[in-house]
């Protein structure tokens, strides 16, 4: 049968019995609507909630522990050191593995006046992570590619200092260029690392006058006053004057300041002398902003922070070795430094700051001992795919390792989402099965009513197969219409739910911007499933239509 004619006849039949067709379509609309809705919800929860907290193909493993009298105790003797990381990196399915070291020293920080109007004071926790492992994530959050594209198109303005350039740009070699914050997260930033023994300095540096120095020493500087407890420090008061050795120790070079982008970090809380150094490059977890906005901002009487973008470049003061809660390190060992938020990564702790691994390592050695600096707290690893995750977990367990609590929670949540999604999709399948039965009944009636028309078509040349194609084509058309309507309703319902959530769940932390994510295949698959149901339902009636004896039917009239 010619396609155009077939479509014409299908259209004619649909029009002729549109009420019955519409009623038959209800089940399909509801079924495909539910299917699309639940697929979008499941995918959305995975992508926007689970992936947001912990990427599915990224695992955090740690030494195996057991609960002993309510306290977790590490089992096994082998430390999580570089050798262990290398061992894990070779596991099948692992693309990359790297150690994560938590700060083993007390610290506190304060800052935020630029944003909030006053400073927030809090205990500080640091995770040391290798700079290379977060590079791409930092670039993504910062949208470095877009910055570079814009920069390539625009003619660079001439400048002498950063202030000559517009916001978001810095002066480099006499020309304004966009600031790429991600570039600042490097393993060995230009900061003064205190040392007491040569062995404490990272490779390539030697311990001179209590500080690790390389071939090019950091410029010395003098502050107007020793920082003391640091509470009253102002960023613009830490610019510092360049200093040079003199008989009394260090003498200021009048009319100079620390180079652009650096500040004068005092050698200890009671010293005016220091080094011109860059702020510690700090990376925070994007969830921190949500936690602040949803939980903390109201209780602190602060306005929520609009977006991550405003946090780029925000500086904070940090005292390493000092604590609100625990025993402080000896005052002479304490360090007052600036840190600057240079980006965001999900590898950063949710309530804390990620610093380059070498920095945390060094200060762990400085405040604790060299041994502590050699051992990681956890190993973060990327798997080749989501499917490789179970294999990697089993292999890691054989090495005496286990998933961290965070990873376990993520996997449990993932499983719950998957099982719930499957259950809901099953429900949709059930509705579709009922719809298919409804279609079967409707088409049985339609075929009975149209048997005369079918007989006429057979008389003028329609083969049995043509009759079947006509019936099934009509069913398929109902499937396509039902699938499109159902999916359309699902998209609309998802949009409604997202809008309601955005309106009423503002204060709930970690609520994503939309619960739904519809994969590109959602619509075609919904339509295909709908067509499959209607065609399946119409198979029986189509067979009956094929089997009609035209002579007998025409004789009845």
């Amino acid at each position, binding site marked *: 049968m010619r396609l155009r004619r077939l479509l014409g006849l299908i259209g*004619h039949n649909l029009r002729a019995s549109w009420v019955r067709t519409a009623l038959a379509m209800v089940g399909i609309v509801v079924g495909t609507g539910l299917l699309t809705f639940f697929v979008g919800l499941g995918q959305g929860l995975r992508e926007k909630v689970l992936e947001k907290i912990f990427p599915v193909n990224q695992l955090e493993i740690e030494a195996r522990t057991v609960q002993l009298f309510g306290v977790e105790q590490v089992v096994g003797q082998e430390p999580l050191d570089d050798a262990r990381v290398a061992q894990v990196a070779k596991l099948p399915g692992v693309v990359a593995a790297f150690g994560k070291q938590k700060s083993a020293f007390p610290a506190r920080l304060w800052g935020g006046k630029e944003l909030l109007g006053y400073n927030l004071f809090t205990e500080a926790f640091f995770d040391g992570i290798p700079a290379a492992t977060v590079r791409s994530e930092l670039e993504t959050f910062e949208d470095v590619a877009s910055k570079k594209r814009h920069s390539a198109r625009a003619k660079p303005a001439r400048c002498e200092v950063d202030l000559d350039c517009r916001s978001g740009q810095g002066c480099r070699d006499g020309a304004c260029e966009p600031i790429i914050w991600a570039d600042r997260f490097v393993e060995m930033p230009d900061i003064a690392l205190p040392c007491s023994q040569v062995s404490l300095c990272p490779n390539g540096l030697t311990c001179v006058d209590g500080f690790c120095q390389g071939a090019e020493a950091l410029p010395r500087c003098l502050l107007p006053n020793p920082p003391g407890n640091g509470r009253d420090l102002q960023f613009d008061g830490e610019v510092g004057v360049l200093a040079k050795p003199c008989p009394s120790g260090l003498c200021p070079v009048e009319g100079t300041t620390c180079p652009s982008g650096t500040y004068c970090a005092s050698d200890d809380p009671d010293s005016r002398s220091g080094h011109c150094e860059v702020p510690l490059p700090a990376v925070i977890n994007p969830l921190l902003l949500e936690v602040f906005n949803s939980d903390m901002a109201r209780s602190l009487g602060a306005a929520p922070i609009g977006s991550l973008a405003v946090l780029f470049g925000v500086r904070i003061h940090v005292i390493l070795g000092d604590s609100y809660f625990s025993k402080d390190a000896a005052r002479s060992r304490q360090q007052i430094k600036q840190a600057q938020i240079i980006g965001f990564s999900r590898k950063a702790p949710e309530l804390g700051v990620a610093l380059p691994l070498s920095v945390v390592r060094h200060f762990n050695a400085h405040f604790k001992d060299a041994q502590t600096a050699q051992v990681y707290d956890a190993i973060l690893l990327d798997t080749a795919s989501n499917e490789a995750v179970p294999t990697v977990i089993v292999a890691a367990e054989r090495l005496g390792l286990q998933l961290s609590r965070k990873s376990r929670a993520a996997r449990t949540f993932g499983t719950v989402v998957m099982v719930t999604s499957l259950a809901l999709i099953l429900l949709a399948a059930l509705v579709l099965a009922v719809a298919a039965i409804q279609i079967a009944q409707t088409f049985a009636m339609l075929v009975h009513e149209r048997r005369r028309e079918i007989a*006429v078509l057979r008389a003028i*040349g329609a*083969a049995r197969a043509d009759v079947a194609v006509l019936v099934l084509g009509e069913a398929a058309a109902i499937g396509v219409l039902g699938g499109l309507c159902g999916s359309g309703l699902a998209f609309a319902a998802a949009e409604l739910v997202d809008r309601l959530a955005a309106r009423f769940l503002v204060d709930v932390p970690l609520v994503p911007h939309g619960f739904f994510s519809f994969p590109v295949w959602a619509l075609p698959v919904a339509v295909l499933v709908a067509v499959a149901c209607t065609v399946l339902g119409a198979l029986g009636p189509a067979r009956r239509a094929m089997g009609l004896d035209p*002579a007998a039917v025409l004789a009845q009239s």
Partner: protein
Amino acid sequence: MSGRPLAIDARQLVRTFAVEGRQIRALDGVDLQVQRGEFVAVVGRSGAGKSTLLNLIGALDRGYTGHLQVLGQSLRELPDRALSQFRNQQIGFVFQAFNLLPGLSVGDNVMLPASFGAKLSPAEVQRRAENLLQELGLGDRFRQLPSQMSGGERQRVAIARALLLEPPLLVCDEPTGSLDGQTTKQILGILNDSRERHGTALVIVTHDPAVAATADRTVVLDRGRILREETGAPVVTATAGGAA
């Protein structure tokens, strides 16, 4: 008409139906030859086997025994697709109840046979349909629905549909059964005109003596058998029951 090839060649044609466990012979050894271009009227009482015979020669029913060739083709062994193609291109049907599809326009109804395997371009099909309707006096009704037409007009549409693919055999089951005398004459004129122009063999089942009178030959069926054949003249009084 002698010497022309046979459109229908039936010999000892038997058709049996099972009714409530009993075998009923609707046709019981029918011998019938119809030449191309010949007009044969089949008359007989109700249940005489007229429609059964029509269904067999119209290739709608193949459950017969005996010999049957339609347009030189034995139909019994043809697969469904080939048989449907045969019906489509070799046989035109006209029914008493017109059997037009109510949701399709007049033009679409006429063009319907071209949907099933005819190798004509859509433009050619449309041209033919328009010409046919023009010839049948319905040139301005192409887009109307059948429900907006009289019985005679609908039957003309049905005839146009049957003639669209210019079949060599036209099978008509009481084509004028529900029409008045004037319209009957008109319809018969159209059918005869087509027969003369295209050499179409015309087999009409009818109860109407006036229709039978216009045929080249009249075949009288009774209880599944041919009671007799007459040429040209009506056979109103010929059958036992006089039902024809």
